[in-house]
C-alpha cells in the first residue's frame, strides 16, 4: 500500500489539498486500483511499440491565420478576479 506521505505527495503534485480522511481513503483506493492492473505486468509485450493514438494522422495543420476573438468579454466574465481586462493572479514574488 502507498504510504501516507506518498499520497500527500500525489496531492501536492496534482494541486489538491487532501484531508486526513481522504489520505486514508485514497491509500486504500489506489491500492485496489494498482492491484487490479498488476496483471498487465505478466503480458508479453516484447518488441511491441506503445500506442499513443489510433487515427494514424500525422501533423495535421490549419493555415496560421489570425482571427479576431469576439468573446473577450464573455471569457473574462468567467474569471473570479480581473483587472484592466486581464486575469488577476496572486502575487508570486
Amino acid at each position, binding site marked *: 500500500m*502507498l504510504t501516507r506521505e506518498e*499520497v500527500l505527495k*500525489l*496531492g501536492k*503534485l*496534482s*494541486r*489538491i*489539498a*487532501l*484531508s486526513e480522511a*481522504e489520505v486514508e481513503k*485514497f491509500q486504500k*483506493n*489506489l491500492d*485496489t*486500483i*494498482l492491484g*487490479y*492492473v498488476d*496483471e*498487465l*505486468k505478466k*503480458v508479453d*509485450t516484447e518488441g*511491441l*511499440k*506503445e*500506442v*499513443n*493514438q*489510433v*487515427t494514424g*494522422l500525422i501533423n*495535421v*495543420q*490549419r493555415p496560421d491565420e489570425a482571427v479576431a476573438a469576439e*468573446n473577450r468579454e*464573455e*471569457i473574462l*466574465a*468567467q*474569471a*473570479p*478576479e480581473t483587472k484592466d481586462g486581464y*486575469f488577476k*493572479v*496572486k*502575487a*508570486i514574488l
Partner: protein
Amino acid sequence: MADLFEFIELTELRKLLDTKKVSSTELTKFFLQRIKDLDKDYNAYVTVTEQEALKDAKAADDYIASPGENPFLCGIPYASKDLFCTKGIRTTASSKILDNYLPPHDATVTKKLKEHKSVLLGKTNLDEFAHGSSTETSAYGPSKNPWDNSRIPGGSSGGSTAAVAAGLAPWATATETGGSIRQPASLCGLSGWKPTYGRVSRYGIIAMGSSLDSPGAVANSVEDLAHLAEIMSGQDVKDSTTGPVPVPAYSKQLSADMRGVKIGVPKEYFVEGMEDGVKQRVMEAIEEYRKMGARIQEVSLPNTKYGSLVYAIVCPSEVASNLMRYDGIRYGHSTKEGGSLLETYEKSRAEGFGDEAKRRILTGTYVLSAGYYDAYYKKAQKVRSLIINEFQEVFKRVDILACPSSPNVAIKLGGAKDNPLFGYIADQLNIPGSLAGLPALSIPCGFARPSDGDTPSMDGLPVGLQIIGPQWGEQQVFNAGYAYQQATDWHKKHPTV
C-alpha cells in the same frame, strides 16, 4: 395530442413538422411540460433551458414557414449531455468546480446542431466529468432508470439515456471514453452510437481521456442515429484528431440486407458472472441475424480481458492531465479562502472536485510519475497495441462483431458507489473497442430479470446487443442495427412513466 410525441422517432417528427401537422413550438412545449411533470422522478436534467428553447422553436417555425427544404433537425428538440459547451448556457460536467460556468463558445457539435435549427431543451446529468458508469458520481445526484427508478440508468451518459427513455427528449447527445454511450443505452433500452474515434469533433466538449473521447448520440432507432451521424461527423480544424475521411450519406445508404454478411461472435465477451438472461437474449439476437442470411462464426479476441486494465491506467493518466486546467484563476470554482497562489490552486481543486475525480487524478499522477511511467503507462500502451492488432486481424475475417453491451441489466442505485473499480468492470465489454477507436452500437434486444433482487417492471429490464465495426465502418454497423430493427420491435418498447 398528448401521448403522441414522447417516444416518436426523428424521421417521423421530420414528416410531421414538414407537413405542418405539428409546430416546433408545440413539440417544444410538449417536452418542456413532460420534463416539469416527470423529471423529479428521474433527475435526467441538470439545467432546463425553457426560455431559449421557446425562442429557438419560434425561429425554427419561422424557417419552416419560409419556402425551401428544412434541415433534418430543424425544429426538433433535443437534450445535450452537460459536457458539450453551449455558449452562454450553464455547462457543469456535473461537477461543482463548474457549477456556474457559462462557456464563451459552442462545441463544434453544438454549433452544427444550431445550424440545423435544433431546439435545445436542456443539459443532461452525467457522472462528474464523465468519470463513472452509473451517474452516481454526479455532484447533482444520480439519474434514475425509467424502467425502474430504484436502479441506475448506467453512465456516464445516464442523464441523456434517462431523458430519452422517459420520453423527456426525442434524442440526446452523449459521449464515450470507455462505454459511456453503449452501457447506459443498453441499460435504458435505447439505440446508442459510439463513433469511430476522430469521426466527430471533440472541440468544445469538456475533455476526459483525449485519446479515447468520442462524442455520439442516443435515440429511439438506428435510422435516427444514421441521420444524426451524418450531421455530427466530419473533419474540424479545431480538432486535429478528426480524420479527412469523407462522411457518407449513412441514412440514404442504410440496407437491411444481411445476406452473406460475416458476423463474428467473440467468445471472450461472454464473461464469467454474466447474467443468464443477458446471454440468452444476445444469443437470440444473433440467431435472428442467422435467419436473415448472415454468416455467423465464433471468433476469439484473447486480449479482451486486459482492456479494462489498460483503461484503468490510460484513462486516469489523461484525466489527470486534462483536469489540471481547473485552477481557480480563469474560470470555474475559486476558493473563498485567501492564501498564496499554490494554496488557491490546492483549495479550489479540493473544494471543486468530487471523490471520483480526485481518485482518477491521483491515480493518473501516480502512474505517470518518474519511476513508475514505464511500468504502468508505457506498458499499458503496449498492451493497447496488442488489442488493436487483434481487432485488425479479426476484421480481415468478419465484417462486424456481435456481442453483449453489458454483462448485466441495470443494477440497484448505490451498488456502484463505493467500488473504485465499478466503472472499469461495468464497461469491460466496451473498453477494448474504445481503446482501438472503433465504431459501435448498442441496440435493445429484449428483456431479462435482474440477478440482484426483483424489479417492478413487468417485462424485466432491457438488454443491449452490441455491434462493433472496423475503424470508419459506421455504415456496416448502422446497417446491422437497422436490419435488426426492421425484423424486430424491441426498440419500440418503452417504460411506463
